[in-house]
Each structure stands twice: as structure tokens, then as C-alpha cells.
């Protein structure tokens, strides 16, 4: 049995210590017993591993910053909702903890946030009223307590419409679909009407909960944009997407699968 460098490395890393790898272990040990060159390779891997043990030793020795200790001890929050996010942000600001990983770029991104934070209350009072979205319960959006739920044509489009075969003339255009950090499926949409609205809806129970809503960008072709890039969405919606997206957007196949699974 010839011994590859990968096998020597795995041996040095203790990968063959388990009984099920006894034959690999034997093979390596026989080989290094008869070939000093191989024995040196193994020793080299081991010494590299020993040296790396001191990597960032200073980080281990530093006292852990207070905000992290507090974060580890914090009471778990409920899955992110519009209100919770806004609260979490102001709480974070109040505690003086850095509010985002992004350092300088966070400051710029932060410019998007106030919009989003006020969106929940503003949506109900202004947008919904202005756009007559909840006219006698027949519009695309229903108000349910503090949350907004998709209904009628919007609900149907969110549940049924795949971007791969949606018509450019459909009254609701679906944009990105993705899994949120709390594991829900979310989709961005644009309501094509005289004054188009874009938003983000996440599937919750049997409903689509509207997490963000704002007048669509009027970048000329916004109304007919097919699968708009995140950057083509209104800032409030884009911020919500960035906050919630856990991984890459779904591709056509992923979307079809999610639909078959009832967006669960």
C-alpha cells in the first residue's frame, strides 16, 4: 500500500486513532518504520500542529469584553420581527455595544435603518391608508393586530408564483426568495399598481407576514424589473432583507422545492 502525504497528515492529526481506522494506521506505521523520510514528514506535521497551538494565544488570555459576557447571559429573544429588531438595535445602542460587525460600513448601512425602524407604525397609518390596501378587507394586505398579513392576490402570488415562470404583466411580481435566520421562507414582492409598492413577506404558520413595505423605486423600469437585485429594492425593504437573509437566495429549483413543501 503506497502512503500518500494526505494519509501521513491524517495520521499525524490523529484521524486514524479510532479502531475503525486500524488498517490505515498499521499501513502508515509500517511505512514510516521503514522509511525515515516518511517519519520526518509525520514529525513535521506534528510540530506544525504544536506550533499552531499558540496561535492567537493573546486572545485566549485577554479578559472577555463585558458586552460579550452580557450577550451570553442575555434572555433569549423571540425570532426577529420588525419591532424586536428596532428594540434590539436601540438596546444595543444604549448598552454602548458595537451595533454591527461591519465597523465603518455599518455606519453607512445604518443610514438605511431609521426608515425600517419606523416602517412598522408608518406602514399601517400612511401607506395602507394612502394606497387603500385594506379597503373593506378586499385589498392585498390585512391588518391583524400589530402585524400585516398578505391576503387575496398577494397571498396567492407569494404562495404560488415562481419567478421562473411569472408573467411580466402579473399584478404581483416576486423578486428574491430566501430562508430567514429564523428558518422561515421569505420573498420580496412588488405590487404593480398606479403607485407600486415593494415589500418583504415571510411565511409564518399558514400566513405571509409582511415585514417591510415601501414605495417601489422608480428607477424607470422598477415596475417591470424581473427578479430585481437587492439593491433595486427600496432602502427599507433592502434593510429588512439584509437583516433576515440567512443564506444565498433560492434558485429556481430551490424555489420550486420550497413551494412544493408549502413554504414550511
Amino acid at each position, binding site marked *: 500500500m503506497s502512503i500518500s*502525504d*494526505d494519509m501521513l*497528515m*491524517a495520521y499525524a*492529526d*490523529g*484521524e486514524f486513532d479510532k479502531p475503525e481506522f486500524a488498517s490505515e494506521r498499521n499501513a502508515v506505521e509500517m511505512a514510516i518504520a521503514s522509511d525515515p523520510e516518511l517519519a*520526518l514528514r509525520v*514529525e*513535521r*506535521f506534528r*510540530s*506544525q*500542529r504544536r*506550533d*499552531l*497551538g*499558540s*496561535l*492567537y494565544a493573546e*486572545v*485566549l488570555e*485577554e479578559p*472577555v*469584553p463585558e*458586552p*460579550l*459576557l452580557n*450577550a*451570553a*447571559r*442575555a*434572555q*433569549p*429573544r*423571540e*425570532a*426577529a420581527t420588525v419591532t424586536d429588531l428596532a428594540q*434590539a438595535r436601540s438596546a444595543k445602542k444604549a448598552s454602548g*455595544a*458595537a451595533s*454591527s*460587525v*461591519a*465597523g*465603518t*460600513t455599518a455606519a*453607512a*448601512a445604518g443610514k438605511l435603518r431609521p426608515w425600517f425602524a419606523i416602517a412598522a407604525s408608518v406602514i399601517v397609518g400612511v401607506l395602507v391608508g394612502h394606497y387603500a390596501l385594506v379597503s373593506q378587507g378586499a385589498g392585498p394586505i390585512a391588518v391583524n393586530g400589530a402585524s400585516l398579513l398578505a391576503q387575496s392576490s398577494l397571498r396567492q402570488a407569494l404562495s404560488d408564483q415562481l419567478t421562473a415562470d411569472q408573467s411580466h404583466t402579473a399584478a404581483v411580481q416576486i423578486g428574491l426568495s430566501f430562508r430567514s*435566520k*429564523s*428558518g422561515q421562507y421569505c420573498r420580496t414582492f412588488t405590487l404593480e399598481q398606479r403607485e407600486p409598492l415593494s415589500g418583504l413577506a415571510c411565511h409564518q404558520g399558514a400566513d405571509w407576514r409582511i415585514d417591510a413595505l415601501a414605495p417601489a423605486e422608480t428607477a424607470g423600469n422598477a415596475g417591470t424589473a424581473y427578479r430585481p437585485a*437587492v*439593491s433595486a429594492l427600496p432602502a427599507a425593504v433592502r434593510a429588512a432583507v*439584509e437583516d433576515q*437573509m*440567512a*443564506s*444565498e437566495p433560492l434558485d429556481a429549483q430551490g424555489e420550486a422545492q420550497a413551494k412544493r413543501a408549502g413554504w414550511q
Partner: protein
Amino acid sequence: MSHSLSQVQDQLVALLPRLRRFARSLTRHHADADDLVQTALERALMRLEQWQTGSRLDSWMFGIIHNAWIDEVRARRRRDRVLTAQEAGEHIADAASEAPIQRLSLQAAFEQLDEEQREAVLLVLVEGLSYKEAAGVLNVPIGTVSSRIARGRESLEALLGGREGGLR
């Protein structure tokens, strides 16, 4: 569930130095690393029910940090499209100035590795996870972990000019 919340939180506190080290190796930036750990802690506490009692809490947390970093890198890319090049450039310069100019130490050499290699090397060679455990954290096949470690090791040797051990 055999662990109470406060017991798990005790374990999290005990893990913090290692979580900070992993985050530091990913971000190569002090403040970014701590923000990343903070994000991961919040996410972990929000979905504690997804952690299977009996499985390693450290591996689970490494996985959450890994995913949070992927999100962060993606978000930065999206933001950078919006930002002016100047603003984006400031951040990069800021990160670079953190690293003192010095002869190539093991740490400096490590920071030259690409992100995938840094993660695999740190989890296996520094944290002592098995290839299989690291594969679980990174959500890749074991063979991928093994080849990232092999490439990482080669690069380190090359960067340090075979100084370590001095055998060749």
C-alpha cells in the same frame, strides 16, 4: 432537555475565549471579531432548541459563527455596491493597519491564508476538532476539510520558508 438555560449560558461563557479566537482568525480584526461573536451568541440563544443536548456546544457555536461570518461577508458585498469606493476603502485600510508590520510570524503567515484554509486549520489544528467534526461545522465533506488543511499547511510552510522544524 437536561440542561437549564443558565447551565448552557455558563458553558457559553466558558467558551467565549475560544469563540473569540475563532472569530478573530476569520475576521483578522479585533472589533469585528467581537461583534461577530456577539451576533452568534444572540442567534444561538434565539434557537437554543436546535442544539442537540449531548452534541458538542463548541462545534455548534463554531458553526453559528461560521454562518454569521458568511452572512456578514455577503452583506458587506451588497453594501459595498451601494457605498462609494472611498468609504469601502477606508474600512479595508483600517483592517490592514491593525496588523503591525513585522517579520512573518506564524500568526502573520496564518493570516495570509485564504479564509477557507484559515477556518479548517484553526478548527482542526488549533481547536483539536476531528476532520469529521470540522466538516460538520463548515458544512462541507470530510475530504474538503482534509484538502483545505493540507493546502493550508503547505502555504504556511512556504510562507515561513520551512523555518518550523527546519527539516527540509
